């Protein structure tokens, strides 16, 4: 391998990317677009759920309960209905996700027996949201009943000797405010690396085939290894630049904490890039058309990264066979490492399993890629 050939190749490749508007767009604009799109658009927090209320009693107590719904950050009362039909319509039209119906004898039963019920109707087309909404609704009603109990006991003039039930005092670590953005943004970096890396490299060899420059390249004494290193070096740098951009943008724009060290992030990102670029290059060597190569590139890098890396969908909630598959998805290790780096501040030793897994992947892919390019036209 001769450095002068690798250098010539790398310079040529850089010039080509620089002069190709499409590549430039992917390299420079795509990370910003993805950051904004996913940072703002994708939130798994359930807040300000639209709620419909049908207060059939309209008493002080019923209003007090509803005020608690309104006061909660999780709910937002958007409509007051007068009948069940309106509720059904609102749910159908998606105006609200949850409907709360207070019966006409709410206060009466509360005073008589101390037990009263309210009805909650939830739109369960999205079961996850429905479950969470029900949980929140129960918490709001629960809070109301505790207070009602206390004031009732008070009113009867008994001394306030309230037996404190066992209470869990939970503390959330690593993402104290339970902001979903804080764990989405680190994952977005993996997504952007996969997208940019695969898109750019999948074009690099197929471009030579399509434009007919391959014929001349093959006739020169350049070795397959020199071709690979020379071609991938610029994309490796672009990948690192994009990662740095994502880090800065995530921390300073989205206020995502970064508790790890930049050097560990660099190691993890480099390994991930080697795998992604290697795969892109392999595809590019095998598929001689640019369009085909780009599509297959997306299929094998972006899709598993988006779906099976645990970036949005928690791996431990997947069915066991799918969970087993995720061990094969190299992005899984990078996403785990990224989240740990950003939120936990894990060091390089804590992440050894992930880094080693990626290193093993990188070694295999690099080996395959280095052998893929054959210097003949047969």
């Amino acid at each position: 391998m001769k450095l002068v050939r690798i250098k010539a190749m790398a310079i040529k490749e850089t010039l080509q990317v620089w002069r190709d508007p499409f590549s430039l767009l992917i390299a420079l604009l795509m990370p910003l677009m993805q950051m904004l799109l996913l940072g703002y658009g994708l939130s798994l927090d359930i807040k300000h759920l639209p709620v419909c209320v049908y207060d059939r009693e309209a008493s002080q107590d019923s209003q007090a309960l509803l005020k608690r719904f309104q006061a909660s950050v999780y709910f937002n009362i958007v409509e007051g209905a007068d009948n069940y039909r309106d509720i059904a319509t609102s749910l159908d039209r998606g105006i609200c996700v949850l409907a709360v119906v207070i019966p006409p004898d709410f206060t009466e039963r509360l005073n008589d027996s101390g037990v009263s019920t309210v009805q909650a109707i939830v739109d369960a087309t999205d079961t996850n949201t429905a479950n969470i909404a029900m949980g929140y609704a129960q918490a709001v009603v629960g809070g109301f009943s505790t207070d009602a109990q206390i004031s009732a006991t008070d009113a009867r003039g008994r001394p306030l000797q309230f037996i404190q039930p066992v209470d869990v005092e939970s503390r959330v670590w690593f993402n104290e405010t339970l902001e979903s953005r804080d764990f989405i943004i680190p994952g977005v970096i993996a997504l952007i690396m996969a997208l940019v890396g695969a898109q750019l490299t999948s074009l690099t060899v197929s471009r030579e085939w399509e434009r007919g420059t391959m014929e001349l390249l093959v006739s020169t004494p350049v070795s397959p290894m020199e071709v690979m290193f020379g071609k991938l070096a610029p994309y490796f740098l672009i990948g690192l630049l994009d990662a740095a951009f994502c880090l800065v943008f995530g921390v300073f724009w989205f206020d995502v904490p970064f508790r790890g060290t930049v050097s560990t992030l660099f190691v993890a990102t480099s390994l991930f890039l080697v795998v992604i670029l290697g795969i892109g290059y392999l595809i590019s060597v095998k598929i001689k058309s640019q369009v085909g190569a780009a599509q297959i590139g997306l299929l094998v890098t972006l899709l598993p990264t988006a779906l099976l890396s645990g970036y949005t969908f928690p791996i431990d909630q997947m069915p066991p066979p799918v969970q087993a598959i995720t061990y094969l998805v190299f992005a899984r290790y990078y996403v785990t490492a990224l989240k740990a780096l950003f939120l936990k501040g894990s060091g390089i030793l804590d992440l050894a399993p992930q880094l080693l897994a990626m290193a093993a992947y990188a070694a295999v892919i690099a080996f395959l890629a280095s052998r893929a390019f054959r210097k003949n036209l047969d």
Partner: protein
Amino acid sequence: MSARVVQDAPISAENLVKRFGAFTAVDHISFRIARGEIVGFLGPNGAGKSTTIRMLCGLLRPTEGRATVAGFDILREPERVREHIGYMSQKFSLYGDLTVNENLRFFGGIYRVSRDVLPERMRFAVEMAGLSGRENELVSSLAGGWKQRLALGCSILHRPPILFLDEPTSGVDPESRRRFWDLIHAMSDDGVSVLVSTHYMDEAEYCNRIALIDRGRLVALDSPAVLKQRSLGGALLLIECDPIGIAIASLPKAPGVREVAAFGNALHVLVDDADAAIAALPSLLSGQGVKTERIERIAPTIEDIFVQLVGAVRPERA
């Protein structure tokens, strides 16, 4: 073949065969090319010229046979071969999105031309291509002739002793073609062996030797003069007449006529005896209602040779 002979011949091919499935593109071709020699591969499209050149450059693996280029076996040491050759492919294959200088610098790097001589060689290539002052223009914006000469410039940056040029002048205007051949002759004077393919018959006259190739076979290999002298066992007549169609149909049956071929709006007719034919043929043609406007003896061109030779070998292969 002994090692010494191989060293004497920069290019040596022995029974090269290339098959693509059932199709035989190159059928047992053997030849040797000496130092400083220009050999032209001549033949119709699809005859196997490009395939042979590509095998010698290491782009395609021969199905059978062997060849050495610059003393290196094309199968065992393809990289050593590639260090010693310059190649210009049929299709333009420089980088259109790079400038003239960027292309030259790229190939300079790939061929590991030392930094001391690269600027001077780049300047030489630019001047040779007639691109002085346009070094920073994108190659895609250049016209055909300039592109071809730049491609030649790129392929000789490392001063290879052997050049493979695959239809270097196709689609180039006549003036550019002539300039291109001047360059090739200059290089041959410097001892560079050149194997050049073309389907322009007139270009064959510029070569030291001509290899006539038809349907994968080497039909003849000799200097233009020897070929003309040896191949045609008779005299060649040019006949301009009207209507030409009837003449083509009836002339082959005339006594003393061996071969008839249409050349543009005239006929080239190979006869046993020129004087007898010039005397007899006009009256024979007028009997068929054909008016002879011109009939004279001419010197044969390479194209005549080609028609004659290919016509001669066809029955043998059928």
